[in-house]
């Protein structure tokens, strides 16, 4: 019975199947919202209201010709998409949805899993860098350098931001942090600054407007993915969608009190809370222009990082007063 539960956990929910299906749905929501914000209609024809369009795109890309440049570092070029996707899918397993008991430490919920999660969500960024670097193309190389510069600007604010709910809850385990806020929902507004910083940093991590600097289409053709095509590009695109789901789930766990109530209510909470964050991300994407990499660095270190630090100070002081 336990074995079945583990298999279900890994393969169905919140494992492979759920992440795939839900990430395509999230992509649809994102595209549809972005389109409606722009007075367009968005996907329409495949499935009801274009619901199956992301899956159709995925299948179509999988069937396309897969080209590897002559000058590329071939083993690395081929391995990077798979490794990065594996890292994000693994991080999906760490989301505290139903397969855990706060009393028992398991492989998917343990003290310090918040750090592992942040680490696994950072791996794709390095994969982007390696992808660009191994392509041996001018545009991809510039994109790769920009990926790293971007990483250095948003990663520190991101880490500082996820620190404050953990400090307030006094735990390094996501399940316990979520439980803490379920018991004390009045503490949630205390982390509002950190939440804002984390949402912006997540937007940068996902390389979406206004932070899609590494793959700026009009400047760098496709940025780090310029040389990728077919299957590997499909994997990269799936990866971005899964990363959005997991990233939104991660923030929902820390800042919106997680997904209480076991299997079914927990599932509904997961959809509701991640969707709320996806709506915010889509709105940010619709109302901004792409900023330059130097503006990004000064924005992160001039505003995001100090705001996250201020939040940390507030939380530490508050912790002295709270029972």
């Amino acid at each position, binding site marked *: 019975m336990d074995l079945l539960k583990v298999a279900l956990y890994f393969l169905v929910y919140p494992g492979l199947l759920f992440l795939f299906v839900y990430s395509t749905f999230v992509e649809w929501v994102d595209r549809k919202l972005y389109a409606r914000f722009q007075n367009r209609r968005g996907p329409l024809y495949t499935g009801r209201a274009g619901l199956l369009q992301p899956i159709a795109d995925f299948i179509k890309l999988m069937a396309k010709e897969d080209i590897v440049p002559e000058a590329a570092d071939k083993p690395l070029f081929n391995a990077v998409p798979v490794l990065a996707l594996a890292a994000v899918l693994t991080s999906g397993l760490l989301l505290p949805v139903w397969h855990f008991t706060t009393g028992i430490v398991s492989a998917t919920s343990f003290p310090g899993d918040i750090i592992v999660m942040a680490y696994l969500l950072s791996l794709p960024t390095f994969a982007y860098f390696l992808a660009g670097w191994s392509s041996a193309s001018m545009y991809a190389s510039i994109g790769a350098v920009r990926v790293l510069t971007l990483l250095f600007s948003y990663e520190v604010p991101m880490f500082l931001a996820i620190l404050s709910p953990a400090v307030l809850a006094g735990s390094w385990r996501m399940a316990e942090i979520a439980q803490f806020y379920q018991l004390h929902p009045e503490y949630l507004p205390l982390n509002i600054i950190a939440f804002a910083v984390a949402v912006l940093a997540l937007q940068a991590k996902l390389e979406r407007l206004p932070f899609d600097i590494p793959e700026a289409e009009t400047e760098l053709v496709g940025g780090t993915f310029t040389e990728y095509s077919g299957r590997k590009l499909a994997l990269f695109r799936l990866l971005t969608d899964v990363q959005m789901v997991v990233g939104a789930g991660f923030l929902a766990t820390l800042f919106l009190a997680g997904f209480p109530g076991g299997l079914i209510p927990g599932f509904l909470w997961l959809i509701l809370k991640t969707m709320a964050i996806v709506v915010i991300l889509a709105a940010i994407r619709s109302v901004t222009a792409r900023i*330059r990499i130097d503006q990004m660095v000064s924005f992160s270190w001039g505003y995001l990082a100090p705001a996250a630090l201020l939040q940390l100070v507030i939380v530490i002081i508050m912790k002295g007063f709270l029972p």
Partner: protein
Amino acid sequence: MSETFVLPVGPQHPALKEPTSFRFKVDGEYIIDADLRLGYNHRGMEKGCEARTYVQDIYLLERVCGICSNAHMTCFAQGVERLMGIEPPPRGLFIRCLMGELERIHSHLLWLGVAGHEIGFDTFFMYTWRDREVVMDLLEMVSGNRVNYGMQTFGGVRRDLDGTQIKTLLEGIAALKARTPYYLNLGATEPTMVARIKGVGLLPKQKAIELNTAGPTARASGVDFDVRKDDPYAGFGDLIPFTIVTDDGCDVLARVVVRAKEMMASYDIMEFILKNLPAGEIRTKAPRRVPEGETVSRVEAQRGECIHYIRANGTDKPDRVKVRAPTLANWPATLYMLRGAFLADIPIIMAAIDPCLSCTDRMAVISDCRGNEKVWDWETLRQHGIDFHRRRGIRP
């Protein structure tokens, strides 16, 4: 990364809507040097004009550019009118001027959208292009076409306006007039957009004059030159009032502002035209042959000053037609603005002059690596074309 390398932009690149080739010497994110190679889209139109009659040439020259089609058409038509010694009737002049201004609106709305797209602001792009449909519908209603209007002819225009059309035009203009300040406001205040266009692509006034820039690019650097004011045509000057729009910002933001304000000025011109449209004929009859002579005709196209040189030899075909599209005048300034800029600013600086590559393209002489140049005259080129197709089994 201190070493420099060369980044090719073009002949195929997402930032380019038509083929041309830039070579940027970059050091990390900075551009050290920029170079331009034209000649990917040369269509031999000037030569083609010499083989056709004047009437055929109007429609050939209309197709120099898809965006400023009416400007080229007007330019050629009024040049030939001057050679013929005829003058269009006032109603014809007014409708000619109206077409020019309608085209300016559609072009500037298109440009605003493209500028938004180049800096990744696709929402702005979608909004402006949605409103552009209003003016496209008006153009279709007036001329029957959305792109190449075919309105101008020697001695006036080809279609008249009736009462309902004037009413619809006024309604459409009023709708656009209400929308345009929103774009002006958005372009000048939205923080991420301003961050990308303020202080970018600086072109000081002195440099703008030295490098011979034209149109909104020059006016955004404070040069108050506009053919509509300095060499009035199509009723401007004495019949139709006109105010020039300039800005001293010298950057891309100033070019956005100038274009948005020019649109506002155009609405006023069009409302004046529609409310004061004189009665009478729309064209005078033009002779088939053009007397010997030469002339230079100028029109303020939406991208700047468009010049046609026409030499007539007394037959029904021109001896020589020379077209200088405004983009050609703005290339040196673009290269000047690109030097020392950020890599990320390439698309927006290039887009800021509203380049049209096919209208501006020149035949290029390509030398091979040994330095051998190959220059072909018209006959050899024609013979090459015939042989080329014959080798592939196509009868010429």
